[in-house]
């Protein structure tokens, strides 16, 4: 399989109430081994997945939010978050956890993986993919 395709993972659901966010992340981690061109999109309630300060001790469910910070180690470095979705929920980028990666093409400089984009930019990103997986 030498072909490289553009894979987009679309995350539109909140974490913990349902399992989709966690099982989406599991696909991303496995998928990383296939060396495709991977992008993650967070819009609508999906932006809540990246909220910082998650503490699940009280609900007896595993907190998987730290896994997002490991995505850079898997060369998953493009996490697009929609500005309009944040604003409707009363959130700003400061409410999201910081996710960094080391850019191998730029002397391993640490760079942020999360990029805030407008709805129009998100639509452009979606329209530029070969395969769209929705969760």
């Amino acid at each position, binding site marked *: 399989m030498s072909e490289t395709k553009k894979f987009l993972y679309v995350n*539109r659901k909140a974490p913990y109430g349902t399992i989709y966010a966690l099982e989406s992340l599991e696909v991303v981690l496995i998928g990383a081994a296939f060396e495709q061109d991977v992008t993650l999109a967070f819009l*609508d309630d999906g932006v809540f997945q990246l909220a910082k300060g998650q503490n699940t001790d009280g609900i007896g469910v595993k907190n998987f939010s730290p896994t997002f910070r490991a995505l850079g180690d898997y060369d998953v470095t493009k996490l697009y978050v929609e500005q309009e979705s944040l604003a409707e929920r009363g959130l700003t980028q400061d409410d999201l956890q910081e996710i960094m990666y080391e850019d191998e093409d730029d002397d391993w400089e640490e760079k942020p993986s999360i990029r805030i984009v407008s*709805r129009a930019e*998100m639509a*452009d990103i979606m*329209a530029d993919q070969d*395969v769209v997986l*929705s*969760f």
Partner: protein
Amino acid sequence: MSTLHTVNKSPFANQSLLSCLGHCKNGDAVLMIEDAVYGALAGSGVAEAVKAHAGTVSIYVLSEDAAARGIADDRLLSEITGIGYDGFVDLVATHDRTQNWL
């Protein structure tokens, strides 16, 4: 290069149809299936929002799902085209990608 979007949830219960329409590019197609077929009803509280996108986006409804739910053809918005599973397959094949709004 255009996208087929599918939506399967009632727009009276869930925001996914409106989010889908808000992310379509000119020339894209939207297909309402399962409980989303209610979004094709004329005279409903979401009809105007759907019609507002019908100029730039082609909007379809899966006829078998509409019939199952008792939606007669004459109750559909005139801007929306009814198609069968065959037409669904054709839409998938003739667009560059399918995005499913779950």
